């Protein structure tokens, strides 16, 4: 028995698994669970599909918890699923969204790392895969995507926190996600990934300072998204391309998804600005999730209206 799940608290992996079952059981018409693979330590990678059982509709793929220690991120994915199921039929925007599109939500991407951060090392970032010819464990999953993977220095050392892995998509978690997205590419119109911290809304590119062809469109969405987010508690986010707004990165999921053809890809760096860093108190989970949900709903509305 994993214990009681709470949206106001951080939940360990066992509670999250039990919660996925509960959501499917409680909302069978709205929520279904898809196993997209397993991790190195044989934990199941679950995507929750929110929406009607129509595969042909537009969809948004969202993932949380690529980096193990960023606990607010999985908390948001759980909050999103809960709010979607709870407010369907009650909230006008959510009803409209779910009547017309689906959401695929991966509540924890880096499950082994997340478990490790709960049980052994709260500051753990990478996954838990073994590296050949090294005692150091783990690959940074957000450096493991095939997006300029080979072009950056300083990501080749298995002991580094930003180790990119032996080859693109070498990690079971990355491969499971990329295979799923590729197989649903026709319907997926947006990709959103949730990190912490620093309060930013980012879009491509990270591996180059060049701007993507639709950067004006992305910047417009990001600007309004951050404005909407601030309406709740006046939390200020900045927005812009990854390379110039946070720092240049290679192998990120965002750039990979964009290059695959999903032309609306965003990364949230959630609260806070560094007072607590990765140790955001539980009392700030709900306000963080509430304001973020406003931005995500805006992005979803935009996708519904402006993509074909």
């Amino acid at each position, binding site marked *: 028995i994993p214990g009681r799940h709470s949206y106001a608290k951080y939940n360990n992996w066992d509670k999250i698994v039990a919660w996925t079952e509960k959501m499917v059981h409680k909302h069978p018409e709205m929520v279904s669970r898809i196993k997209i693979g397993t991790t190195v330590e044989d934990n199941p990678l679950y995507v929750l599909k929110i929406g009607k059982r129509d595969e042909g509709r537009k969809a948004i793929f969202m993932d949380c918890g690529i980096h193990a220690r960023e606990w607010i991120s999985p908390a948001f994915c759980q909050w999103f699923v809960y709010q979607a199921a709870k407010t369907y039929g009650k909230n006008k925007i959510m009803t409209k969204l779910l009547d017309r599109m689906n959401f695929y939500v991966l509540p924890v991407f880096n499950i082994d790392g997340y478990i490790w951060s709960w049980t052994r090392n*709260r500051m753990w970032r990478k996954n838990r895969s073994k590296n050949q010819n090294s005692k150091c464990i783990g690959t940074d999953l957000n450096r493991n995507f095939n997006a300029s993977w080979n072009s950056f220095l*300083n990501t080749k050392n298995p002991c*580094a926190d*930003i180790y990119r892995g032996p080859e693109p998509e070498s990690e079971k978690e990355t491969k499971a996600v990329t295979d799923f997205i590729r197989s649903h590419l026709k319907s997926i119109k947006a990709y959103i990934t949730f990190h912490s*911290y620093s309060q930013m809304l980012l879009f491509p590119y990270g591996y180059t300072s060049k701007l993507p062809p639709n950067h004006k469109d992305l910047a417009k969405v990001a600007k309004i998204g951050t404005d909407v987010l601030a309406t709740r508690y006046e939390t200020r986010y900045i927005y812009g391309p990854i390379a110039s707004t946070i*720092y240049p990165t290679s192998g990120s999921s965002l750039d990979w998804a964009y290059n695959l053809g999903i032309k609306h890809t965003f990364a949230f760096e959630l609260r806070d600005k560094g007072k607590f*860093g990765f140790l955001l*108190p*539980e009392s700030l989970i709900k306000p963080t999730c509430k304001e973020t949900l406003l931005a995500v709903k805006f992005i979803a509305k935009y996708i519904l209206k402006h993509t074909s």
Partner: protein
Amino acid sequence: HSGEHFEGEKVFRVNVEDENHITLLHKLASTTQLDFWYPDATHHISANMTIDFRVSEKESQSIQSALDQNKMHYEILIHDLQEEIEKQFDVKED
């Protein structure tokens, strides 16, 4: 938590102003175990950037001395990481 503990570990926030500061931080990172919170690695550090990193209690004094000697502006965001880890669970069970 049965695993690693972080008693006395600190998180520094440092204002990086110029190339000298960057060089110093690279040097410190090569001799000391610094866990970069923001940005996520030393090579992302640039001038006019504010950076956050975690350091063990044992090494925090030497880091502080190095920053002082080089007249770098900094603050200690977290004085005892273990305390902060425990404080993050500030919501009681329903």
